[in-house]
């Protein structure tokens, strides 16, 4: 390690909410040496992003730094004017955001955006900067590095765009880069490319980095040292291997133990007839874009069938076809042996009631202007004509079932946390007394510990209520935890289908193998070993 680069002392940050300033970071000390990678890890609300960008002397609107010192290579950033800090930002410290798609200007070519910072700051001339860009694109193994810069952001894939953003952060050869969840929005197979790219540039240029994430397995691949944060406080700090082998705090142990949940397999003595049967299904979006081809699928009663695949594999479309939101162009969906009408509009109230759906984003799946009484109560009134005290009693019963207090009934949905909202979505589905629940990425927008609680809840409900689940996810850890059967999808087709044990034990289909091997493990050498293995193979 080199000399000390960044020293932050007693950093305090407040955020404005509900008409008052509330502390969100409570006196954090932090230091970083040249060439060192520091991992900041914690759940949402831990203040990790806020701390990360505060090292550039910046806060998001509605936040303010109220105390502490930030010393960057002898420059007291906390005491500098905006103009002075601007000299450092982008040149000596740069930032890589979570969503590359939202961070690029869609109206300009990649290379224009790459060269903007060095040219604006007067570090490099345009031609030199563009030349560097092509070099660094090649380093990051972007396809056709000489010309990819002439594309617009929407013309490259998500993983490529994220790598282009890493390249952009390197444009002035900064001393430090802040990576703010750069791989969270990516598929596992794409995540590997980006992680490898980041690791490569950081070691090659001896750049110091702060890597912010909620995924411990990701950060251990890169970080030399890890700080575990919670509610704006430091929980634990030590070297990466140290923290994995010998975590001191309970919370750290919980984070390490995450994704160890697995349901007990049960022999349910399957009935003769599958509950849902999908036969030779084809579907296309308007304009004739084919998204599903030749899908055959059986879902047995009281089982959990997990559909796995990357974004664009058509797994969510499959859910839309089964619910009737997208009528198939060919093929049938059978329910208890009878054919379901293709469009939900033609299905009976009872057919609609029996198949319920839970969504990825509880924020947009719940009407923000409704109280829980109405959210959960409406299906009760609609399907079972419950009203008054009877309905109220049942809503409270359902709240209890999803482990929320009964007095929440008068809350509006935005007053709940992400995990609580997802529970409400589950309660709303349960209110209809369904036979099947389709879960579309229900845990991927949640923190890992919260997600695990949701999985446990779904598992418990399955046992208590004999529920059948169709579980759509890109997260193989979730699949391992709860599936009875696995369907692997790729580009609108089913590539592998079978009981969990069968799909997860070799020999795999090539694509299943790729998916399985791409899931990060809590082992600092995992990425290096994997990349080495892939190169030799």
């Amino acid at each position, binding site marked *: 390690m080199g000399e000390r680069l960044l020293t932050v002392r007693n950093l305090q940050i407040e955020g*404005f909410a509900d*008409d008052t300033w509330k502390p969100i970071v409570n006196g954090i000390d932090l230091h970083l040496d040249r060439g060192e990678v520091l991992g900041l890890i914690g759940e949402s609300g831990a203040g990790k992003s806020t701390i990360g960008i505060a090292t550039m002397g910046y806060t998001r*609107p*509605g936040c*303010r730094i109220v105390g502490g010192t930030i010393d960057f290579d002898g420059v007291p950033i906390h005491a500098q004017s905006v103009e002075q800090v601007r000299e450092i930002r982008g040149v000596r410290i740069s930032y890589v955001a979570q969503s590359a798609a939202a961070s690029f200007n869609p109206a300009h070519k990649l290379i224009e955006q790459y060269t903007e910072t060095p040219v604006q700051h007067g570090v490099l001339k345009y031609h030199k900067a563009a030349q560097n860009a092509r070099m660094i694109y090649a380093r990051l193994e972007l396809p056709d590095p000489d010309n990819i810069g002439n594309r617009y952001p929407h013309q490259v894939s998500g993983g490529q765009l994220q790598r282009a953003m890493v390249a952009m952060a390197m444009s002035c050869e900064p001393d430090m880069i802040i990576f703010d969840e750069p791989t969270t929005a990516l598929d596992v197979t794409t995540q590997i490319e980006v992680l490898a790219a980041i690791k490569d540039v950081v070691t090659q240029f001896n750049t110091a980095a702060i890597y912010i994430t909620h995924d411990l397995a990701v950060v251990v691949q890169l970080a030399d040292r890890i700080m575990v944060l919670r509610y704006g406080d430091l929980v634990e700090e030590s070297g990466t291997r140290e923290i994995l082998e010998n975590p001191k705090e309970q919370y750290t142990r919980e984070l390490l133990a995450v994704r160890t949940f697995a349901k007990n397999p049960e022999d349910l003595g399957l009935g003769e007839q599958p509950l849902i049967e999908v036969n030779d299904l084809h579907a296309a979006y308007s304009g004739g874009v084919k998204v599903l081809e030749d899908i055959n699928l059986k879902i047995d009663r009281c089982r959990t069938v997990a559909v796995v695949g990357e974004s664009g594999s058509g797994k969510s479309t499959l859910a839309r076809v089964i*619910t*009737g*939101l997208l009528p198939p162009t060919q093929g049938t969906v059978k329910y208890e042996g009878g054919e379901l009408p293709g469009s*939900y509009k033609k*299905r009976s*109230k009872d057919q*609609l*009631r029996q198949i*319920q*759906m839970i*969504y990825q*984003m509880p924020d*947009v*799946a*719940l*009407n*923000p*202007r*409704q109280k829980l009484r*109405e959210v959960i109560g*409406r*299906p009760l009134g*609609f*399907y079972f004509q419950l009203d008054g005290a009877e309905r109220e009693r049942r809503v409270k019963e359902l709240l209890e079932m999803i482990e929320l207090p009964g007095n929440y009934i008068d809350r509006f949905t935005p007053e709940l946390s992400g995990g609580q909202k997802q529970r409400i979505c589950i309660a*709303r589905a349960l209110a*209809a007394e369904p036979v099947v629940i389709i879960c579309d990425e229900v845990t991927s927008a949640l923190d890992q510990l919260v997600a695990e609680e949701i999985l446990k809840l779904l598992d418990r409900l399955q046992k208590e209520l004999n529920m059948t689940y169709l579980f759509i996810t890109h997260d193989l850890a979730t699949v391992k935890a709860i599936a009875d059967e696995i369907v692997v999808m790729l580009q609108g087709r089913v590539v592998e289908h079978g009981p969990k044990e069968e799909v997860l034990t070799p020999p795999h289909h090539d694509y299943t193998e790729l998916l399985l091997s791409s899931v990060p493990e809590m082992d600092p050498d995992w990425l290096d070993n994997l990349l080495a293995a892939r190169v030799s193979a």
Partner: protein
Amino acid sequence: MRFWNSLKRAGLPAHIGIVIILIFAFAALFAPWLAPYGESEVVEPVPWATPEESGTVLGLDQLGRDLYTRVLYGARNTIALALGITVLAFFMGMTAGFFAAVVGRWVDHLLSRFVDIIMAFPTLFFALIALSIFGTSIPVMVFVIAILDSTRVYRISRALAMDINVMEYVEVARLRGEGLWWIMRREILPNTLTPLLAEFGLRFCFVFLFISSLSFLGIGIQPPAADWGAMVRENGVAITYGIFTPLVPAAAIAILTIAVNLVVDWFLRKTAGLREEY
């Protein structure tokens, strides 16, 4: 409580606006008790008598009626009409807009093109034609202006509803088997209410100015009923003699318009989630 809190933090311009609106509302509601004379009662047959000459607050108008009384009654007529028209316009515009957004396809096309056609004509021109065909009665005027205004409301409601319509909670309601009316009323309406309320304030101003200009042209509220626009027109000549009488109803129009806009600005800022930098 929440509303009260945000009201307290609204800032000086919004507070001024609210106070002015309250004063005007009070004047409109209690005009018969506040006014010293009858609505069309001639105090003295002296046109444009000054306050000193006639012993009244603001002097007399062109027929010798008390100007102060006329302004109070004018508030009553103009504001009540404008409010009624705006409510009607919003009801029609929102229903049609939500309907078009939720049903989509050809219904949306049909309604939207129909609205485009109406909007293609200048509003005043359209109102003039309609009022000369159907006669200048109050119900006709209310209906004509409401329809013209509802086209603007339709546009906004449709755009807002389209955003909400793609939300998953609407999808959930659809998959539950909910009917159209329920989706419009319970899922879409509450989520579009804040921007539409702000728009309501703005539209109210426009309607109000529109009535005034119709009255100014002589096809709005008919004499002897008091109306600010008509009062400006009737007394307009006086300005050439250096008499301030026509300025009083004109000022009333201006002040109320500004006040409503101040409140609407605050409302819009609140909806847009924009905050002053701390």
